[in-house]
């Protein structure tokens, strides 16, 4: 109950504080470019009067108004989140995003009721500059690299062509609908419809992320939907700007359309290069951080944000830039900074993106309470219907084509989930506010809100039961065993050999080439001189073995996947530092991101694999049993199991 009480108290505080400011300027009730949560620039009644006597107690709200309100909103968001997870059953049925929007609706309604004017809305600038980057950065940093690149072709296919299909389809059909009813919708021109189509067609990464996170569908499906939502930003940005500039031009020629097409390429690749540049610079910077490890995480955030801002400045695709930046710098930064810094980076990313996401949804709810809504049954229902139809047909068509070249075919069930999981979110919302004013703009805003609410509520709530109903393949939650590991490696080697026999220059060939380039140039340049060479690996191995001998040998203990992952990461990171002469070769689905290494000499075979087996053989012993360590190495601090990787890293650094 406490969170709810605090929620109410804070809402009340928000109202009180906002009412302390000068009366709301009516023309500012749709703030475009005003800051978050502010109602007015208060040049109102000065609170400081000429004092008659020395005041003992005074309130100066104006002094702290801006940060105070911001903090209150964030507090509201976080308490709301606490509130839901307090009750165990609700989050299972209703996705968090829905609940947050409902809270936002509630708060917005309360504010409206008290003040009889529109509550503060989510300004586009605040959204694009402050709320969106943390979420996208978090998504990019934790992107499963191998899976993403394996499916990159399909993802790009969906993102580029699918979005284009949706935009044109929705835009043109909406225009057709407008033509059908010239009395009420007559002044919506074709360009307006196309503009609207461009902003409503794009799948929103925030919404997708929040809904799919709780679903645990199989990884391929997840990466397809999610990757598409991230990468369609390029197309959306271009088309939106294109149609907007077309609206401002007196006339549109074929040349303009052609230029628009070129612009897609420029925007996409421009974002990519900006991201690459900043990613590499960030990696290089992290190389020099060992003396000041506290600052190291900061560089990750600064460079990523800088890449986003730079590409926004150049009107390139900011999302692509920040995702590329994160993906690029991740492996080098992880190798360069200490384990503690790595944990900090991950933790802060998660925290910021969580706060951002919560805020976005709450504001979506609050902003729904508007002064003026323009409603048109035809337009709204047509939009909803067309969105669904065009997305479904788009996915079907594109998948039919792409399945011919894919190894793991996208099944019909997966296709259905891809189509159904195309949620719209706050990006559409912000974009619609940025349209130049024209008579039917309020209609667009209302329709956008309805579409967002529909997709988030209806589709978001029903997708989980549908996934169960359709028996979509789920993520495997099994705990790894040593046998699986060994036999999978055997199969990997086997397939490597077979592919060599057959001479197949496929995906793995190019990946191989990239890994060679990576090792020869990039890693040497971007990663500091590591003390990690063979001796430290052997030290790690012996340490683990000692723990094994110290502990009881009972039945087979499976390792938790998180432990396995962190162990793998260290070991593979360790391994790649030494021995640079060998060609790498990566196989179908490796359990970790590093390539399988084929060695020309017997001496340095797949050592990392061995250590994995060794570690697996040890099992999750209680790490506190370090009393049996006889060696002269300093015993690491032992915490709970999850910090296994951290401890080993500590030891390595000693």
């Amino acid at each position, binding site marked *: 109950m406490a969170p709810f009480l605090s929620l109410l108290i804070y809402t009340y505080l928000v109202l009180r504080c906002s009412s302390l400011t000068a009366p709301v300027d009516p023309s500012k009730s749709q703030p475009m470019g005003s800051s978050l949560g502010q109602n007015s620039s208060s040049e109102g009644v000065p609170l400081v009067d000429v004092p008659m006597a020395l005041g003992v107690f005074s309130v100066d709200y104006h002094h702290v108004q801006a940060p105070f309100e911001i903090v209150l909103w964030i507090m509201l968001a976080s308490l709301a989140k606490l509130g839901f997870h307090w009750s165990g059953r609700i989050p299972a049925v209703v996705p968090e995003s829905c609940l947050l929007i409902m809270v936002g609706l509630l708060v917005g309604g309360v504010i409206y009721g008290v003040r009889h004017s529109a509550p503060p809305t989510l300004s586009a600038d605040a959204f694009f500059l402050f709320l969106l980057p943390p979420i996208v950065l978090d998504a990019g940093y934790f992107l499963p690299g191998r899976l993403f690149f394996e499916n990159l072709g399909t993802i790009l296919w969906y993102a580029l062509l699918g979005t284009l299909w949706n935009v044109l389809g929705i835009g043109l059909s909406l225009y057709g609908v407008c033509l059908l009813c010239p009395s009420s919708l007559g002044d919506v021109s074709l360009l307006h419809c196309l503009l609207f189509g461009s902003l409503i067609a794009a799948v929103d990464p925030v919404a997708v992320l929040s809904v799919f996170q709780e679903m645990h569908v199989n990884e391929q499906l997840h990466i397809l939907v999610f990757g598409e939502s991230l990468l369609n930003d390029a197309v959306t940005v271009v088309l939106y700007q294109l149609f907007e500039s077309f609206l401002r031009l007196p006339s549109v020629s074929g040349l303009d359309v052609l230029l628009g097409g070129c612009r897609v390429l420029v925007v996409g690749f421009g974002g990519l290069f900006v991201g690459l540049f900043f990613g590499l610079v960030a990696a290089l910077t992290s190389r020099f951080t060992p003396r000041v490890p506290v600052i190291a995480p900061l560089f990750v955030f600064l460079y990523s944000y800088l890449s986003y801002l730079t590409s926004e400045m150049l009107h390139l695709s900011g999302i692509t830039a920040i995702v590329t930046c994160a993906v690029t710098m991740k492996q080098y930064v992880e190798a360069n900074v200490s384990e503690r810094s790595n944990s900090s980076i991950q933790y802060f990313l998660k925290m910021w993106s969580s706060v951002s996401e919560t805020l976005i949804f709450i504001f979506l709810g609050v902003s729904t309470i508007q002064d003026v809504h323009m409603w048109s049954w035809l337009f709204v229902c047509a939009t909803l219907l067309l969105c669904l139809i065009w997305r479904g047909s788009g996915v079907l068509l594109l998948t039919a084509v792409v399945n011919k070249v894919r*190894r*793991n*075919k996208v099944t019909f069930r997966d296709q259905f989930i891809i189509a159904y999981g195309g949620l719209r979110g706050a990006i559409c919302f912000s974009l619609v506010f940025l349209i130049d004013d024209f008579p039917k703009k309020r209609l667009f805003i209302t329709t956008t809100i309805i579409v967002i609410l529909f997709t988030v509520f209806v589709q978001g709530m029903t997708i989980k039961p549908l996934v169960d109903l359709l028996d979509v393949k789920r993520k*495997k939650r*099994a705990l790894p*065993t*040593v*046998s*699986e590991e*060994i*036999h*999978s*490696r*055997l*199969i*990997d*080697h*086997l*397939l*490597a*050999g*077979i*592919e*060599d*026999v*057959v*001479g*197949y*220059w*496929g995906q793995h060939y190019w990946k191989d080439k990239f890994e060679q380039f990576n090792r020869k140039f990039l890693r040497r340049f971007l990663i500091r001189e590591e003390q990690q060479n*063979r001796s430290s690996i*052997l030290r790690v*191995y012996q340490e683990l*073995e000692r723990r*094994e001998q110290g502990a009881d040998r009972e039945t*087979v203990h499976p390792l938790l996947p998180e432990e396995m992952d962190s162990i793998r990461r260290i070991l593979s990171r360790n391994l790649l530092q030494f021995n640079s002469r060998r*060609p790498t*070769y990566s196989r*179908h*689905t490796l359990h970790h991101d590093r390539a399988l290494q*084929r*060695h*020309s000499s*017997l*001496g*340095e*075979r*797949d*050592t990392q*694999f*061995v250590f994995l*087996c*060794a570690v*697996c*053989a040890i099992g999750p012993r209680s790490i506190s049993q370090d009393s049996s360590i006889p060696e002269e190495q300093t015993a690491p601090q032992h915490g709970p199991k999850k910090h296994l990787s951290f401890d080993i890293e500590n030891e390595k650094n000693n």
Partner: protein
Amino acid sequence: MGSRASTLLREEEIEEIKKETGCKLCQNAPLYLSQTSITNPVFNSVFSREDFQRIPELAINPLGDRIINAFFPEGEDQVNFRGFMRTLAHFRPIEDNEKNKNAAPSEPLNSRTNKLLFAFRLYDLDRDDKISRDELLQVLRMMVGVNISDEQLGSIADRTIQEADTNGDNSISFNEFMKVLEKVDVEQKMSIRFLH
């Protein structure tokens, strides 16, 4: 089938190969093989172990020798095109419609069981349908190298057998092998895309 030096494959043979291996594009296989040293007129040739060993990447593959052995039938030193395609047919992707079809009396070569059997045979050199601790150690040593001592390797092998062994005979039978790998997506891992 015995080794027939430089025998031209006749139409019937091609048809037989197609039926046996289910490989419709057998005739186009040479296109894909054109990058290895094995290729020149593929249909007519008979491969020996030296041909395989000339592939550079295969030479440094830890399991290279065993893979090469897998191509050659028992005790023979040469394999013809048909045998070669039979082996490769194990790595065809499993298509959905084939799962339901009941065409062949025996299972198609690229079924999951047969794929796993292929992998199993890489361990099981003496073909006694059991992976003994020694056989496991041999393969582990090949994959791992000399950096690990024998006892450590032994304990890994012991744990592997411990995880899989259900009937307590201290070795892994094929059924136990299949059970251990039931969660691994073998159909996808052991498939090469273009072989359909």
